[in-house]
């Protein structure tokens, strides 16, 4: 038995990554193209081509490895969602994570970090016409609204330094900048390379105060890949000494004085390991529970709205004049045929251009309700058509108007028919609330993602906890609907 297990282990144990890279003639680096400039983005002149300072760094590293191994090595890009790159690394799908990943003690415990390739700082951005904007102004009353990338170093920095702020968590960088310009936010705290890169595109924004909180962008490899780790460190050192790193940074306008701050060109001592952290539940339990509350709130507010809208639409399509039925058909087809995420995006980021500004929670509830109303409408349409024609006729010959006949006779019967399908949709909506994170509403899934990203070694217990929370919330729903079905059938 033991020998079998050992044999299996030997089969599974990855052979040395550097050897594998030499054999393949390429290493695979994981990054997320969605993150945008200056890291990695489609070439505006030729969108099928990727450019960015990390693309050039990967190519320069390939060149160094070619020299070191004496065999041609190419840099192969692999697309992955930014927050899932460590998981891709651990499963062996990529050889390294190279995508604006900061060195943190938590990550360094989970993966092996190379020498830094860039020293980033955080830059506060405010509207250029906001008089007296400064870090002091930011901390003063009334509480300011500041946009940050969810789970980023900017978020934790602000949470510690200015606890009075109202932090709004974004999925991308430029959305937060746009919302400062539009006035939805007071400020945003961005990684300096991003602020520099997009400076020309957002002339309405001003750099406020000096950059703060320097940190290191490092490459992460799997723990135990000592040879690859050493080879990358040596290559990075060579690129820095030769001036290649500086030349790349300058091409993208992101070279700063901090790049010569020797304190940040090496990694901190491993003593951080000793930092005692609070218990697991104290750290994650409360925030996860809070965001579970948001999940429930979104579901309970949006679904009744979706049902009402859907019923109205179904009645209009079936019994309304053609002038009403036709636009409703279009409504249903458009909303079913486009992704919820896109619809939320339009509600939150595009409508303000037309003068209609909704708060994030309002946009999320409205978006979910409108999207699900299309599905509800189709369910109700089927339910209404399943009621025998004789029921409508029997009501009409008693002297009822069509409207009264629908209300008293046809709709109550249709409702009984559709209960199982509607409950099913409610549970689907319940889980779809996670999409609302694209418009800064932090619910359970988003909170889990943020926690899992900042504390990668706790991923398993975190995932288990999130899953249990979802189950604890959705199971009573199933029970409730089963009771409802029985009550209506009786």
């Amino acid at each position, binding site marked *: 038995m033991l020998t079998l297990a050992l044999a299996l282990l030997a089969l599974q144990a990855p052979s040395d990554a550097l050897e594998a890279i030499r054999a393949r003639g390429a290493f695979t680096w994981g990054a997320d193209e969605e993150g945008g400039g200056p890291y990695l983005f489609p070439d505006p002149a030729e969108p099928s081509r990727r450019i960015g300072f990390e693309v050039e760094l990967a190519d320069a590293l390939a060149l160094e490895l070619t020299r070191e191994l004496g065999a041609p090595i190419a840099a192969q890009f692999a697309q992955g969602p930014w927050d899932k790159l460590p998981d891709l690394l651990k499963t062996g799908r990529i050889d390294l994570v190279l995508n604006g990943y900061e060195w943190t003690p938590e990550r360094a415990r989970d993966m092996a970090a190379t020498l830094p390739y860039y020293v980033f700082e955080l830059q506060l951005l405010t509207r250029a016409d906001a008089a007296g904007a400064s870090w002091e102004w930011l901390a003063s009353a009334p509480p300011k609204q500041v946009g940050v990338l969810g789970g980023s170093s900017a978020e934790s920095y602000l949470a510690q330094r200015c606890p009075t702020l109202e932090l709004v968590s974004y999925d991308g960088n430029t959305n937060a900048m746009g919302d400062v310009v539009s006035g939805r936010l007071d400020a945003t705290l961005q990684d300096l390379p991003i602020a520099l890169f997009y400076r020309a595109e957002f002339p309405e924004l001003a750099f406020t105060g000096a950059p703060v909180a320097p940190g290191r962008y490092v490459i992460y490899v799997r723990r135990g890949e000592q040879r690859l780790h050493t080879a990358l460190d040596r290559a990075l050192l060579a690129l820095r000494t030769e001036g290649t790193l500086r030349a790349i940074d300058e091409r993208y306008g992101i070279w700063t004085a901090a790049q010569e701050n020797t304190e940040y060109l090496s990694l901190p001592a491993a003593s951080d390991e000793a930092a005692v952290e609070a218990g697991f539940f104290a750290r994650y339990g409360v925030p996860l529970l809070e965001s579970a509350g948001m999940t429930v709130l979104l579901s309970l507010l949006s679904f009744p709205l979706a049902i009402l809208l859907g019923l109205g639409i179904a009645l209009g399509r079936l019994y309304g004049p053609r002038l009403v039925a036709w636009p409703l058909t279009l409504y249903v087809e458009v909303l079913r045929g486009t992704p919820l995420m896109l619809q939320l995006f339009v509600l939150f980021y595009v409508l303000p251009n037309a003068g209609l500004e909704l708060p994030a929670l309002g946009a999320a509830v409205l978006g979910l309700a409108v999207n699900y109303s299309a599905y509800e409408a189709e369910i109700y349409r089927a339910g209404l058509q399943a009621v025998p024609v*004789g029921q409508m*006729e*029997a009501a009409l010959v008693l*002297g009822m108007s069509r409207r009264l006949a629908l209300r008293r006779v046809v709709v109550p019967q249709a409702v009984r028919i559709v209960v199982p399908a509607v409950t099913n949709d409610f549970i689907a909506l319940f889980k779809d609330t996670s999409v609302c994170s694209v418009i800064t509403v932090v619910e359970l899934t988003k909170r889990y993602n943020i926690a899992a990203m900042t504390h990668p070694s706790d991923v398993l217990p975190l995932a288990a906890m999130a899953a249990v929370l979802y189950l604890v919330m959705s199971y009573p729903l199933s029970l409730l609907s089963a009771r409802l079905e029985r009550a209506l059938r009786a």
Partner: protein
Amino acid sequence: MIRVQELTKSYGAHAVLRGVTLEVARGELAVVIGASGSGKSTFLRCLNGLERLDGGAIEIAGTTLVPGLAPEEEERRANALRQEVGMVFQQFHLFPHMSALANIVEAPVHVAGVSPAEARERALHLLERFGLAAKARSRPDQLSGGEQQRVAIARALAMQPTVMLFDEPTSALDPRRAGEILRILDALADDGLTMVVVTHSMGFARKAADRVHVFHEGRVIESGPPEEVLVNPREAATRELLELG
């Protein structure tokens, strides 16, 4: 009470009614017989506006239906005549989500504006008259076919119509239950209600009808008292119908 002139009705190219002319006097019990597909059910549905007429005219309980009315006007007239004309279907069409009592109370309360208490009292009275006092709380699916049809008749009567239309009220029932229903119709006729009954039951026609109208291929080919039409029919089609019955 009812006057129908040259009524025509087609479904696409298929002419179902080819010029029906017929009169029913106040308090009369008219029985309509005819082979399947002769147009008798369509005729009955035209009488209370469930079908739109293509040609001719219907005058019933003070309302006139003619073709080519604007949809709102047509709706208004149909609704007006339905206040006076009740209808009972072959398949009962009780509201399955309501008790027998609630089925009967529904229209008086929500259409005629009768107070719930009074409507309830009237409904219980009707149920008792039809031997269903114990079934007031039952749902339609807990009732037998005969019981369901009795509730359906009570439901129509609760609106206190002056005319009642019956569309093959016994065809979905076994002979014993059918007999019960026909006895009820007989009793209603004695109360002076104007009634049009579409049926296959020649026995009922013979015994209860004031006048019998024979439908054949979308026309009334013969009308008259039962002892005339059913004993000495003029038309070959009527004879054929009687032999089959």
